[in-house]
C-alpha cells in the first residue's frame, strides 16, 4: 500500500510529554474537556491560555485549574484523582448527579482516557484486567467513555511484551462499545470509527512498519482528516 502525502511522520517515537503536547494542540479552542487520571492529566500542562479550554472534573467542578501547591492546598478542592487542585475564575461547583448528567448528556466535547486496549471499532477496555482475583473498580470510566462527544485515548502502542494494544477485538472487559474516536500512541495517531482505522501520523516508523505491528487493517488518513496545524 502506498502512503499518501497527507500522512505525517516524525523521526522517532514520542515521549509521554510530547504526546500530551500533541493532544493538547488538537483540542479545539473553547472546548470543555475531561482529562482522565494518569497520563491524560499531563495534557493540562500543554493547554495554551488562548485555547480557552475549560476543564471538568467529575467530582463536581467546571473551571478546574492546575494542581495546588503549598498554601493553595485545600482538602475541599480536589480532582477525580483526589489530588488537590485550584479554581480558575469563572468556575462552578455542582453535585455528583449534576456533574455526571453533564458528562452523560453529551455536553463535554472531549474526554481523554488511558487504555489497556482499543479495538478497530473503537471499543475501549481500560478498567479491569479481567484477572480472576482482581478486585474490580470502575469509577467514572464508563460514563466518560459513553458520554463525551469525542473520546481520545492516550497509551503506548505496545505492551511491555510487545503486543499491540490496538486490537481486532478487546480481550479485556470492555469499558464502552464503539466510543473511541482517536488513539494517541507513542508510535502513531489513529482515527477509529465505522470506516475502519486510519493512521494520521507515525512517529519513528513507516506506515508499513506500523501495519506489521498492528493486527488490524490500517489506512492512511483521508486528506480531510489531516491535522490542520503543523506539529
Amino acid at each position, binding site marked *: 500500500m502506498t502512503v499518501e502525502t497527507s500522512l505525517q511522520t516524525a523521526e522517532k517515537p514520542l515521549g509521554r510529554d510530547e504526546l500530551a503536547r500533541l493532544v493538547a494542540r488538537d483540542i479545539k479552542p473553547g472546548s470543555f474537556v475531561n482529562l482522565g487520571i494518569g497520563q491524560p492529566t499531563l495534557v493540562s500542562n500543554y493547554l495554551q491560555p488562548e485555547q480557552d479550554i475549560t476543564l471538568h472534573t467529575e467530582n463536581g467542578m467546571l473551571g478546574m485549574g492546575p494542581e495546588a501547591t503549598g498554601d493553595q492546598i485545600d482538602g475541599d478542592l480536589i480532582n477525580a484523582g*483526589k489530588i488537590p487542585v485550584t479554581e480558575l475564575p469563572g468556575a462552578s*461547583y455542582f453535585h455528583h*448527579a449534576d456533574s455526571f*448528567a453533564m458528562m452523560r448528556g453529551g455536553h463535554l466535547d472531549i474526554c481523554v482516557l488511558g487504555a489497556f486496549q482499543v479495538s478497530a471499532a473503537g471499543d475501549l477496555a481500560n478498567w479491569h484486567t479481567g484477572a480472576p482475583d482482581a478486585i474490580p473498580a*470502575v469509577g467514572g470510566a464508563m460514563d466518560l467513555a*459513553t458520554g463525551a462527544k469525542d473520546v481520545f485515548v492516550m497509551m503506548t502502542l505496545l505492551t511491555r511484551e510487545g503486543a499491540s494494544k490496538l486490537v481486532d477485538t478487546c480481550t479485556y472487559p470492555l469499558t464502552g462499545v464503539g466510543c473511541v474516536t482517536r488513539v494517541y500512541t507513542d508510535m502513531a495517531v489513529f482515527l477509529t470509527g465505522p470506516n475502519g482505522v486510519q493512521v494520521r501520523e507515525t512517529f519513528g516508523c513507516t506506515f508499513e512498519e506500523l501495519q506489521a505491528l498492528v493486527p488490524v487493517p490500517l489506512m492512511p488518513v483521508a486528506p480531510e482528516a489531516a491535522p490542520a496545524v503543523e506539529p
Partner: protein
Amino acid sequence: MLNFMDTVEEAVAGIQDGSTVMIGGFGNAGQPFELIDALMDCGAKELTVVNNNAGQGDQGLALLIKEGRVRKMICSFPRQSDSWHFDAKYKAGEIELELVPQGNLAERIRAAGAGIGGFFTPTGYGTILAEGKETRIIDGRGQVFETPIHADVALIKALKADGKGNLVYRKTARNFGPIMAAAAKHTVVQVSEIVPVGGLDPENVVTPGIYVNSIVKVA
C-alpha cells in the same frame, strides 16, 4: 421533622442492624468523619453501605469494614492503594460488592430521591456490569435499565445549616451530599456552622431543609 443534636452519638442513634446507610464524600472531601466514627461506636451491624469508595487506610469506613459491620458495599471504586481492609474481606468472601459505574451510582441515588422507578442509560451497555440487566436500543444506542438506590439513613457533611435545615456546601465537598440527603428516609448532617433562619440566601441554598432530619455541629 428537623432536630438539632448536641452530639454525633445522638445524631446516629437511630441506625439499626441491617440498615442501608449512604455515606457522603469523595476522597476526604465531604466525608462526615465524625458521623462515621459515631456509627462505629453505636454498634449497628449487617449494614449495607453506599459510598463512592470502600474505605481508605485504618479509619472511618475502612474500620467499619474491618470490624465486620458491613455486609454489603454499593460503590464505584473499592480498590485503592490503601483499601486493605476491604480487599481482605472481599478476598475472604466476607463482604458483598455491588460495583456501579460512578455516574450510574449518582443517577440511581438521584432517582430514589426524585421518585423515579428506574431509567435507561447508555453507561455500561455491552460491558460485564450490564450482565443480567434489561437492555434496549433507544434512538440507535444500546441502553441499560438501572434502578433507584434508596437508603434508610444518609450521613453527610455540609458547610453551614440554617435553622430550617437548609444546607450549603464547600467546593468539591458538595459531591454526593445533596442527592443522598434526598434519597434517604432519614438524613443526618454534620456541619461546621449553624446560622439562624434567614442566614442563608434563598437563591444559594443547595439542599432545602425538607431533606434534612438531624443536624449536629462538629467543631
